């Protein structure tokens, strides 16, 4: 095989694990013919730390802050997901106030995660202004996180049976202000991206996936909705208070990198809408209403499954409990883990310059991929 490769005009370029385009530690080995990519092979596992095995030795409460660390920018949804699977095991629904608080926290997390992604897109296409403007907006979302739960990234906010604390004073006011400001500033960033023919030209027409392939490869999240699959767990398999929220799920049929980009931008606007609705609902719930249930330390025996719409796709946890304080087995289905396995399919026939643009649309997060 080696000799054959030596004699051909093609060469293998190893992009990663330390490469500016790979946000995190992973490798994409690509075979290029000039600048055109003919083959590719993703390699992950540099960050594998046996997360699932580690959980088997920890009590349920101790896993919540660990679940935060699965993904630095979507920490809220991961700890939420873990709490959901534990609640499913305990067969309880959390109080109404906690449900809405979780929705607000989740959507703040989704916005800041998408902004992190937008910043990464900025660097990948070579414009640092997008990067810094997006991070500037993200900072306001992180400030909301700080107000709500005391930390910027590793929030540790959901608890099994509710949330850690109620809203602090004036949180509604701060939240509404931040959302309003954010919506205005996002239009500013859109002026740099969608109004720029260079940016659109770099995004359009690369990394096509058909609807059939998306389902077959198991790609989920905005990447899936950008390819014509009209499916969102928040709407179709509602958890917590999402069933009562009214929002639209953006779906585009093109299936290229640009449509995936647009789906994410629209999702940020929809998230703002959800936060507004949830805040309005929270006003109608009395302030001293319960937001946290007292739950037993041990979770009854059985197998349990919960899933959630992570900013990157479908997060699924499968829990086997044996009646003790710690889980017997906890399986995490990470959306990026599946999405990146399809990268070979996506980069076929594009140029080297397109790889960062296509891979940015997966929104890599290696913490949850390698677990």
């Amino acid at each position: 095989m080696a000799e054959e490769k030596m004699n051909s005009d093609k060469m293998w370029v190893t992009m990663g694990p330390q490469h500016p385009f790979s946000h995190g530690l992973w490798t994409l080995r690509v075979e290029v013919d000039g600048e055109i990519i003919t083959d590719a092979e993703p390699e992950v596992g540099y960050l594998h730390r046996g997360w699932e095995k580690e959980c088997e030795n920890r009590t349920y409460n101790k896993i919540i802050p660990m679940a935060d660390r699965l993904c630095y920018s979507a920490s809220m949804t991961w700890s939420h997901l873990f709490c959901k699977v534990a609640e499913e095991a305990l067969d309880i629904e959390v109080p109404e106030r906690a449900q809405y608080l979780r929705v607000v926290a989740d959507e703040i997390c989704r916005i800041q995660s998408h902004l992190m992604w937008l910043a990464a897109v900025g660097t990948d296409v070579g414009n640092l202004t997008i990067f810094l403007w997006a991070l500037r907006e993200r900072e306001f979302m992180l400030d909301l996180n700080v107000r709500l739960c005391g930390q910027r990234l590793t929030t540790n906010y959901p608890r099994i049976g509710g949330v850690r604390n109620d809203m602090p004073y004036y949180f509604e006011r701060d939240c509404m202000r931040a959302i309003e400001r954010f919506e205005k500033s996002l239009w500013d960033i859109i002026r740099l991206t969608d109004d720029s023919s260079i940016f659109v030209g770099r995004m359009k027409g690369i990394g096509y996936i058909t609807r059939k392939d998306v389902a077959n490869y198991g790609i989920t999240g905005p990447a899936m909705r950008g390819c014509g699959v009209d499916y969102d767990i928040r709407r179709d398999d509602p958890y917590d208070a999402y069933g009562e929220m009214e929002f639209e799920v953006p779906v585009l049929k093109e299936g290229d990198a640009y449509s995936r980009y647009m789906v994410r931008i629209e999702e940020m606007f929809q998230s703002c809408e959800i936060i507004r609705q949830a805040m309005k609902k929270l006003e109608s719930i009395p302030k001293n209403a319960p937001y946290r249930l007292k739950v037993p330390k041990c979770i009854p025996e059985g197998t349990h499954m919960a899933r959630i719409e992570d900013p990157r796709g479908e997060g699924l946890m499968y829990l086997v409990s044996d009646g003790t304080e710690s889980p017997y087995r906890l399986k995490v289905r990470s959306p990026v883990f599946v999405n990146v396995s399809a990268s070979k399919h996506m980069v076929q026939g594009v140029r080297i310059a397109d790889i960062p643009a296509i891979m940015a649309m997966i929104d890599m997060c290696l913490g949850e991929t390698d677990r």
Partner: protein
Amino acid sequence: MAYESITNFIVNRGYEDLIAMSPYEVYNLPYDIAVKIWESLGGLIAWLINLIFPNNGVSQWLISDPVTNGFAIILMVIVIFAVSFVFCLLMLWEERKVLGRMMDRRGTMVGLKGFLQCLGDGLKTFMKENVVPKAIDKKIYWWGLSLVIGTSVLLACMVPLSNRWFIVDYQAGLLIIFALFALAPFLILCAGWAQNNKYSLIGGLRAAELMISYEIPMLILLAGTVLMAGSFNINDIVAYQEEHIWFVIPQIIGFFTCIVCAVAESERVPFDLSEAEAELVEGWQTEYAGMKWGLIMLGDYFRGYVACALVVFMYLGGWSLPVIGGEDWYLQYFPEIVFLLKVALVFFIFVLARAALPRVRTDQILNVGWKALMPLSVINLAIVILLKVTGVM
């Protein structure tokens, strides 16, 4: 007499003597400065020698006209280089501060509003380990690097700041600058190949690919300017613009096309394909570590300076300024500063483009080059010819 007074050795030559002694036909300011430096420096040395060996011939020889001329020419080159070098650092500072403010941050903060940061960066790159990979083509690796930097520095020194600040007043001034400018992609290709690294090879290939898309429109634009002014000589072009009108007004299309080409020529964002850091790590510079990289960086700014200067010469009237109240005082004191300010202004547009636009792809730059820049430059040329034929200009 045991020793003579130091004033005997320091000759203060007048304007007439200077013109008579100098190799130039017209007054040259850096030459004047260099002569002044040598008069004090050489006079001091001659006086010191005379203290030890009284009445020797060397002291007299040191302050004689031919020797002063010789040393003055060496010193003049240093003066010219130092000015362009410092101005490049100023441009670097301008870029960092302006870019920072555009991105809603502060830019560099070290000393003198951040200007001393470039000195710190320079020092840092010089202190770095000089890593040279083993499996390289040594000769081309080093020559490619040296020539890329060398041509950039040469170009920067060849740019005249005014009609009294130049090294040589060529008849083919603009043409030779263009010729040297176009040499770089070839050297980059060689350097990229010599490093035995896939990224740098692709970067070098991209530099060559990039060249054919902007070099031709650039030369057509040059033809427009030259046709209008009737000369390749920079002095003549500027004088013509001063006399009639800045070319930016009749050739407004050419001006904008030229800015795009100039950005591409100096390989800056959005046309920095050959060193696109998102996909090619550092492109053709990947294996040039430490101070080699620092020099390449500096060379890039030299080229940026020259590209801006070309735009100023061709469209913005060089060092000329529509002055009110007689031109004598202006020409006597600060045409160089006016020129440099104009260069900084054009560089501001470069920085703006860097802040607002993402990097283009290889096929896109070819598209832009052949489908937009090329026709625009031809249209510009047609307008120039029309104006010339009808005798408007």
